[in-house]
């Protein structure tokens, strides 16, 4: 250990400590999440939302393409025929059962791309924590409702 090396090391340490001290006096970057809204970009992929037509009928026709393409096999669709008494969608068939398992979903967005009627959209809802695993399998009653995310959607 030569004297020059020691002094050099000493200088380096002081330099490093000056850098950290500089950050000590800047404002933290942390978003205080429940109190402050998170800022998201429009293409952020959160919880799915099943869309409706302007007249209130469901767009989903129960074709099952989303379930077929899903790499995580998180989607389960069971279709049934519409009748004149009980009409859910504008076409012959509708999704009697539509479930997404959020313990498996990876939010890749393939289902959204596969959907021929544009019924399935990935929304901006990300607060998906639930008390039990069972609650993470969400059915139509949840997915049909547009969520209000704790977020500010930014311009693209």
């Amino acid at each position: 250990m030569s004297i020059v090396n020691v002094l050099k090391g000493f200088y380096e340490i002081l330099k490093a400590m000056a850098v950290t001290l500089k950050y000590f006096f800047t404002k933290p970057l942390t978003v205080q999440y429940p109190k402050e809204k998170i800022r998201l970009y429009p293409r952020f992929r959160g919880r799915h939302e099943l869309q409706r037509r302007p007249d209130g009928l469901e767009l989903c026709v129960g074709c099952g393409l989303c379930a077929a393409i899903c790499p995580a096999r998180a989607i389960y669709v069971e279709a049934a025929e519409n009748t004149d008494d009980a009409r859910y969608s504008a076409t012959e068939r509708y999704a009697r059962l539509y479930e997404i398992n959020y313990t498996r979903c990876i939010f890749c967005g393939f289902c959204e791309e596969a959907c021929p009627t544009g019924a399935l959209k990935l929304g901006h809802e990300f607060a998906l924590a639930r008390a039990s695993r069972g609650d993470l399998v969400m059915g139509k009653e949840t997915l049909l409702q547009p969520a209000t995310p704790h977020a500010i959607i930014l311009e693209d």
Partner: protein
Amino acid sequence: MDWIDTLLIPAIKAIVVTLGLLVGFAYMTLAERKICARFQLRYGPNQAGPFGIFQPIADALKAIFKEEIIPEHVDKWLYVLCPVLAMAPAILAFAVIPVGRPIVIAGRTITLQLADINVGLLYPMAVAGLGAYGIVLGGWSSNNNYSLLGALRTTAQIISYELPMALSLVSLVVVTGTLRMSGIVEYQAALPLIVLQPIGFLIYFICGLAETNRSPFDFPETENELISGYNTEYGGIKFALFFMAEYINMIVVSALVATLFLGGWQGPILPGWLWFFIKTAVMLFVFIWVRASLPRARYDKLMHFCWKFLTPLAALNLLVTAVVVLILR
């Protein structure tokens, strides 16, 4: 009347010092988390009460009510005793530190110092050294190879760094001509010793980092690269006691730096105890600042640094100091 001087006042002082250190420990953990967070552009704990000031209470409750697990293979008595063995010397070491100028209450002069013994400087060194027992026996009684290795590693580190630390303090004694703490503080009325002994100060500070197992020499805490160490088998409040010992040691070292090098409670305008508090707080901030800035050293480098650099430097510092003092006399 006599019992008031010999019993009551020391007892009150002892209780105040102990409680002060325990509260100081609790709020050191909060301060450390907050300050480290600010260095890393975070906020740190801020949910429990305003600015998170109840966080230490929540932490303490959690540690106390956590399930006590005593592994089957440990040496039970020592295993339970060791956290206390590590913790008690840390508190004891504070006894000789003067925290302010003597005050007069009801005609009695009360020194703000538990004991002004004439070997004041030796006492914290001796007592703090006892803390090593808690660590090495904690590692041994855990009956686990890694704990034992960790304990030996930590003890080796503590004992090695005692040497340059003591040498740097000896040069202080050479300058001031006294071992008494109050004498050293009085000597610094005009000029803090850091001006006369800058190298001694640096050596003492670095050794203080190593003695209290603080970053960048925090080998008992190397969870990921060296399997933590002597406290691997400890959990709950027993682990918290080891933690407490580390933090109280840190407060004691900072208070010693303030007393020995920064002029103790001497200072203009403000009352003495406040100066002492400010100086100690500044040193504690530097401790945390170092932790936030420097990566952990490698173990062999740590030992090299101590034996091949710090110890000779401290000896040289002592030699030069002695020669200068001799010439000036």
